[in-house]
């Protein structure tokens, strides 16, 4: 069976629906407290997917995801290494890492995304939304058709909720923006319902550069995004499910967010040569 580890604790709060998503996609999912890994030495290497869920680790103090990223980067595990060292091994062993919202913020601050040169240095950041407030609203996202990450296979335009106060992806300079574009690491963008660029509020809900909603690393094994696909596991999560169902009575009851989890679980199962 494909196995996912979903880390939690310290204010992370989307672990349950995330674990549910992996389970619906056919994987086994363990919800594990960060300190089980950091202090008790619970190993991430027993898993195929390492997941950083959404929430408010340390209340977004200092910046969203920053205190948690510091822990991962600096705190010594019982074996004397840091969790970041373990994650680097995890990735070079061919495993997969995903972060959503607060988890994405951690991955970016840790340098796991976009990680253009695989040096694991911070190359972008998540700044306060241009609106200067936290907002929960549904947006459309479009998959970059140049991107090869397995997480987004066979996906194009889909609706999904954003729920954050610090989601504005900033690369800081043109060079970095260009590299990200060239390598198609900006794998997911905010868009209009028809897929055309969002470019303005509230379609781009936070002012992110390149309308960027999600990033992957050059290996495609690490993927993160600000929106919450794990909050769209069921059709009935969609704010317009009433009209959608009326228009198309045979519409699937599965939410479009689940596809991302299905993609990665299926991909790993295929690599391992096992059934989902």
């Amino acid at each position, binding site marked *: 069976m494909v196995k996912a580890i979903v880390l939690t*604790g*310290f*204010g*992370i*709060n*989307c672990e349950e*629906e995330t674990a*549910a998503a992996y389970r619906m996609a056919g994987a086994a999912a363990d919800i594990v*407290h960060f*300190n*089980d890994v950091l*202090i008790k030495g619970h190993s991430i290497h027993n898993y195929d997917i390492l997941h950083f869920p*959404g*929430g*408010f680790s*340390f*209340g*977004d*103090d*200092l*910046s969203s995801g*920053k*205190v948690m990223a*510091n822990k991962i980067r*600096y705190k*010594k595990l019982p074996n004397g290494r840091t969790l970041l060292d373990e994650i680097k091994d995890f990735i070079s062993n061919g495993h997969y890492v995903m972060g959503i919202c607060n988890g994405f913020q951690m991955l970016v*601050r840790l340098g796991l995304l976009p990680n253009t040169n695989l040096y694991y240095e911070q*190359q*972008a*950041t998540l*700044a*306060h*939304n*241009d609106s*200067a*407030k*936290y*907002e*929960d*609203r*549904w947006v459309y996202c479009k998959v970059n058709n140049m991107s090869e990450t397995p997480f987004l296979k066979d996906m194009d335009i889909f609706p999904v*909720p954003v*729920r954050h106060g610090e989601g504005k992806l*900033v690369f*800081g300079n043109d060079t970095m923006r260009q590299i990200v574009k060239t390598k198609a690491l900006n794998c997911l963008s905010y868009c209009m319902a028809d897929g055309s660029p969002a470019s303005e509020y509230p379609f781009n809900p936070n002012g992110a550069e390149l309308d960027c909603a999600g990033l992957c690393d050059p290996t495609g094994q690490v993927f993160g995004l600000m929106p*919450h696909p*794990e*909050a*769209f*596991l*069921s059709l*009935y*999560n969609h*704010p*317009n499910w*009433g*009209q959608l169902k*009326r*228009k198309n009575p045979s519409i699937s*009851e599965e939410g479009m967010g689940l596809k991302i989890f299905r993609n990665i679980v299926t991909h790993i199962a295929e690599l391992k040569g096992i059934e989902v």
Partner: protein
Amino acid sequence: MYNTIQRFFKEGIRDSKGESIRYNAQQQLGINTGKVKTAQLFSVNYPLTEEQLQDFSEGCIKDKITDDALVNAYFTPAKYACAVAVAQLPGVTDDEGISAQMALADFFNLDLDVNTQHIFSQYIYFFENKLTEEQLKNVTKRILGNPLINHFSFAWVDEESEKIDLRYYVPEVKLTIDNTVEYIQLENLTDEELVHLSKTKVLALNLEEMQAVRNHYLDPEIREKRHELGLQMQPTDCELEVFAQTWSEHCKHKEFNAIIHFDDKSKGEKKTIRSIFKTYIKGTTDKVAESLKENGNDWLVKVFSDNAGVVKATHDKLFVWKVETHNSPSALDPYGGAITGILGNNRDPLGTGIGGAKLLFNTNVLCFGSPTYSKPLLTGQLHPRQIMDGVVAGIEAGGNKSGVPTVNGAIVFDDRYSGKPLVYCGTGGILPYDFKGKNSWEKPIDAGDHIIMAGGRVGKDGIHGATFSSIEIDEHSPMSAVQIGSPITQKKVYDFMVIAAQRGLIKTSTDNGAGGLSSSIGELATIPGGAIINLDKVPLKYAGLRPWEIFVSESQERMSLVIEEQNLEEIFELAKLMEVELSDIGVFTDSGFLDIRYDDEKVAYIQMHFLHEGVPQKIMYAEWDTVVLNEPELKAQTDFSETLLKLMGSLNICSREHIIRQYDHEVKGKTIVKPLMGPHGKAPQDAGVMRFGFDTYEGVAISNGILPRYGDIDAFEMSAGAFDEAVRQIISVGGRLPNTESGDGIFWSVNDNFCVPDSVFDEVGNPDGKQKLAKLVQICEALYDIATYFDIPLTSGKDSMKNDFKADGKKISVPPTILYSMTAKLDDVRKTITSEFKAEGDLIYQLGETYNELGASEFYQLLGHLGANVPKVRKEAAKALYLKVMEANKNGLIESSHDLSDGGLAVALAESAFGAQMGANIQLDSLPGELSNEALLFSESHSRFAITVRPENKVAFEAIFGERANLIGQVTGGNSLTISRNGQNLVQTKVEALQKAWSGGLSF
């Protein structure tokens, strides 16, 4: 001397927070600040070398992409004219400082005690324009902080050096240990002196209660006991405080348990009510419970006897529901008041039964003065806009950071809430039936069980919250009553509780809220019959608290756990891993006494029986006479388009989207009907709907009914109407009334929440107290009348009795307000009905009858009238209609449904139309009766819906409703709403214009 790290944005990085401050200063205060630049300062009191400090700043504080940082140097941006630094006052929660300290510990791999604060954070704001001192202070006080919790340093640019020299303040608490215990002499005090003592010590006990305490200490049996133990014959300060907390209105509900002599002159009848709680509230549930039982419905599990009401939800889940108020703190510090309100209310389901319920959702209902309030503010009164912004920010932080979705709510504007706002917080949760074979909802405690405090430490914050909320706010309200919550501290406690309960480690738990340990342990101790508490074992935030202060402090984020000896080791280990502090502070006994010690010295020794039963019953007086009101003469009007547009934008109808979107309403992934739905998320809904889990489509509908203005005409009808409003909202989304079939499992769980002005008659201070109390009785009579008719039980509730703001010789009192917060089981959330139209061509019906009932309506309010004909609930007709709606929904015949409430039919149609991005053609001719156009369009008669039906279902639908189905029109694909009568258009307007007006009412 502190080291400092200042962090600020690099040149060219957008400062959206600064932009927002600039906008708000202009918009709310008319002050042009010019550009605003924000920065943060960390004061570090930990031995680090300059190089270590640099590394820490680089590695942990600044963001590599957007920030610059200076170590031990201060940044002044060029061309800025003045600045303010906003720090916390000593002892106020500084989560950001604590988190920075956590980062420091991780960075250097130090084992740093997080309970000693080494890093303090503060914000700095630079303003481009040279503001006057008054302007700068005004902006600071209104937008940036609150002098009750913040310290402000102001500075202006020095023309020569071009520097702004701020004096940075560090809020270190400097107190020395003080374990003094005083004895308070009561024996020879006169009545006046007793009352004076109660007031100066903020005990909020009246003369009879003070006398009862004094007399208790004269009881020979008590004197002998005290003599034996070497205690003096007078109460200690701690004992007196325990009586004050336990007997507070907040904890004891003395007025709801008072004897009320009611002289109803309107009916020429006099009666005596022995406890309105027992008569009307518990009385309702007792009667309903009997009726449920007769019909084989056994879902009521626990009512009124725990922190929250408990009902059976599914074959393996219990549903826990509690709504609380947090009004007084929110008046003083809106942000802190609301955040502690929501977090405190979360702890109620969390501490119900054994404890460890999973929280499913939050609701909030808020009552404010107008955000554009223009009367002069009284001493200590905050502007309603400031209160609103602060409360909303507090709910945002409290709810979002706890990971609990806010799925339903309401905001009511009325200037009588400008002194004390009302902040109602509700939380629903899920318990399994059992934890390791033990019934989850029960609270067993045996002598010998350990008392464990879990979570935050104890400080001076929140001392006297329970007693303070039981009196009016005036200029002398204690500052220590204000607390700031720490959602992350509580989240850790919550996560811990859930796991500890699942592992069977917790025997019982309760939350520490009002009255602190005094209330939580005092109440739990009634189960085994006593307790010993060692106050020296209670961990403190800082030294300097006297024993009594430790016992009554309301410091937040704490639970009291009851743990059996054999589980101590395991639970302490789990807590350590999850970074939750536990302290073993005592044991339960069966001695019959509450035995409180500090370093083995007794600081209080109180007979449990007297503590809980000794409070004298209050006697109160109510009086009512008929009030004659008249209907206004209306100007003849034939075109109501403009009126409707104005109504859409009016304060009590307009969109709350700006606020709703700041709350996370879908974390946990179980929200099915959110506050705003439809193709563009603009359709307001009647009730929230959640599913219970990913393994089931069973769920719960959540609604709130509140109609304070109706009480200006008739308090009975206000109460009945608010109850009906909440019921019909649940019926509207597809809910079913309870007890209509044997064993159907359709639970209803209702919390009643009373917020009334001081209703104790006093010739000088409260001359209309008897009339206010009469209204309270009428509210309760209506509640009993309608709830027992519908078989809907109350499972928990709250009464807040002193909602008055007094200052400068003036008093602002809230109108008597009742909120009914309802939850009801849905068998299949996929069958819920939302309010927006679904398809062009669908038929539109009005269900339920309109009467000439414009009294206290939004329409009259718009014209400046009150009127006399307040909407009346006709419960028989209402129930008959709801049963038909249920039948129609069972057959899948209803496509959309919106209940008719504020603004009547016209507003409901407008919302269903723009919410769907569709239009409608309406003819009112088919509606029976001889009503005026105004009444047909805007009357707020209860128990009505605007619903839509597919044309092909017309016959089946009408067969169910017969004459009660009034076909009034059709959904159009067009973009206009047309309402006509006798061939004449009463309303003809673009749907987009209606939505724009609706969206614009509160958009700032």
